[in-house]
């Protein structure tokens, strides 16, 4: 591992963290070569996480879009309800190998926090989760779940009080206790080796989905679509298709839909390369290099940066990045629920919205595989309120 994805990635961290990062990289490499570790990981993915998750063909959604057949990879059916658990279990096992019994983590939507809390409870590790106060208010049920699972939840009031600030606080805590604590980073962001490790633990999504899709259809999909906040579910999904003639599409949050005029969380569309939280990647920043405010209705996408590998994919054209607005995501949220019987996370609804856009470019017989990264229970309150508000505005306009 060299820690670089083209000109992105690296280790832009305090000197205090360089040693722990080197230790983590070395242990990860040893773990990958250790049949016992891999067997234990497989066993936990099967018996605790509930893998393999199925792929599900859509009955109605997509058919209206030129007769394209949509398939969903059902990460919403994992234990704790999102792909985050794959990485949490993997890194918790790594932490145990490193002899670290204390885990710290950050969470935006709360999905990663819940996954960390569950993994730590199962493996007997002590967990502390940092969460922005704004996110905690938007995702109250997940805060309760984390506490019930035995994790300490530390609310962060600094900055924008969202994911970026929760990551800052977790890194500060890690700098203070690097010898005893493992920072269980939840996405393919941050300094090397995290982007590589998290992608590694999420690659199970792509491996399963590719084999399942081939098994069902006898061919690969025309396109694979996933949402990209930090980008871990997309990195895991895309990793299996990088050598295939398959179109890969990442969907970022266009938020209020004003394009580059702010109110979004789409650095790959409207940002520039810079350094944030230990890595060089596309960022939303102002002319002075200060990190800008972001907005998305999906708290898990509300991040000013993105995984460095996605930046490299963007520059090389390996993956195409498009966006879906809050409105489009809400439409997909409602449509998937009512037409297919699946309530998606708002993050995943962005992927579905993006897939419906991509579908318009194809004709009957075409297939698109969408990563449904998580389930929507956590978003019910905010999504229902937003849908109702929209309804009222439309009625007023009429």
């Amino acid at each position, binding site marked *: 591992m060299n820690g670089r994805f083209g000109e992105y990635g690296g280790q832009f961290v305090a*000197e205090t963290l360089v*040693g*722990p990062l080197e230790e983590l990289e070395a242990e990860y490499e040893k773990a990958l070569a250790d049949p016992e570790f891999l067997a234990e990981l497989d066993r936990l993915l099967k018996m605790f996480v509930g893998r393999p998750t199925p792929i599900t063909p859509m009955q109605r959604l997509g058919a209206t879009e030129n007769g394209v057949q949509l398939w969903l990879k059902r990460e919403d059916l994992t234990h704790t309800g999102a792909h985050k658990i794959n990485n949490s279990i993997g890194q918790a096992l790594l932490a145990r190998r490193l002899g670290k019994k204390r885990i710290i983590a950050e969470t935006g939507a709360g999905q990663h926090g819940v996954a960390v809390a569950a993994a730590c409870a199962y493996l007997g590790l002590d967990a502390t989760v940092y969460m922005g106060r704004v996110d905690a208010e938007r995702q109250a049920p997940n805060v309760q779940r984390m506490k019930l699972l035995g994790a300490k939840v530390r609310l962060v009031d600094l900055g924008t009080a969202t994911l970026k600030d929760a990551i800052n606080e977790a890194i500060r805590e890690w*700098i203070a206790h690097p010898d005893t604590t493992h920072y269980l980073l939840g996405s393919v962001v941050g300094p090397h080796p995290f982007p590589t490790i998290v992608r590694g633990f999420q690659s199970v999504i792509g491996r399963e989905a590719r084999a399942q899709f081939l098994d069902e259809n006898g061919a690969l999909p025309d396109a694979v679509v996933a949402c990209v906040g930090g980008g871990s579910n997309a990195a895991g999904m895309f990793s299996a298709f990088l050598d295939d003639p398959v179109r890969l599409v990442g969907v970022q949050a266009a938020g209020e839909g004003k394009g580059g005029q702010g109110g979004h969380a789409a650095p790959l569309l409207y940002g520039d390369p*810079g350094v944030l939280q230990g890595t060089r990647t596309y960022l939303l920043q102002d002319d*002075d290099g200060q990190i800008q405010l972001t907005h998305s209705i999906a708290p898990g996408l509300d991040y000013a940066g993105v995984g460095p590998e996605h930046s490299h994919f963007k520059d090389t054209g390996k993956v195409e990045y498009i966006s879906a607005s809050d409105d489009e995501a809400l439409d997909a949220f409602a449509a998937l629920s009512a037409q297919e019987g699946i309530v998606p996370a708002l993050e995943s609804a962005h992927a579905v919205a993006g897939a419906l856009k991509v579908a318009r470019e194809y004709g009957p017989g075409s297939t698109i595989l969408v990563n449904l990264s998580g389930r929507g229970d956590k978003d019910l309150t905010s999504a229902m309120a937003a849908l109702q508000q929209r309804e009222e505005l439309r009625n007023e306009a009429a």
Partner: protein
Amino acid sequence: MKRLEQTFADNRIKGETTLVAYLTSGYPNLGETVGLISAAAEAGADVIELGVPFSDPLGDGPVIQATGQIALDTGTTAAATLDIVAEARAAGVEVPIVLMGYCNPFLRYGLAQLYDDAKSAGADGFVVPDLPAREGAEWVKNAEAAELGQVFFAAPGSSTERIAESAAASRGFLYVLAANGVTGVRAELDPGVPAYLDRVRSVCEVPMAVGFGISRPEHVAALHGRADGVIVGSALLQRIGEAKDAAGRLRATTGLIASLKAATR
């Protein structure tokens, strides 16, 4: 760079520890910063470390982070900080001034332009807390071209090999972290610090300046003879923050710096 080397060399001859005073550019506002720099220098600060604020200062504790936010709110940028350096020079400040800041605002400014402009403004070097030596080649190249200092870090958990690497890359001095964690006042120095400083000394040819948690004359005195310099930040900004008005902030600066400088002899 020459001014920085000369300062450490002169103090070594005098048997004094070099006192580095950290101030946040634009705190409490852009108008007072030059006055605070002058006051610190007159009271005995040998080097001024001037912080360029950043929205996400990962290495900073609550005190410095809060000053940075206030500075950002009042419009402080890297360019405004270079103006402050130029004004300080025009006002007769002669001590070396190193600029502390995180990678992103500096990268955004453009490294070649930044080092050129810093030199023209009268700055003496850069301290970048999220830049380990292994990521710093381009920065060192620009520092060498502009004849400015480039300071890297040693941490208590760093291997001796890594400390040697950071020391070899450093121009001006090596910033030796006295503790893990972020900046901030600590009651006591870690008892392991002397042995750690000896380990750093064995592989370091540039001057060693120790920072993080140094707030009192006793801390400075305890490091006398073991380190070439000490760096005080949070304690100074805390005093400045507690003062009621501009005159009080100048008095707070002068008072603390004078008492710390007395302990360097």
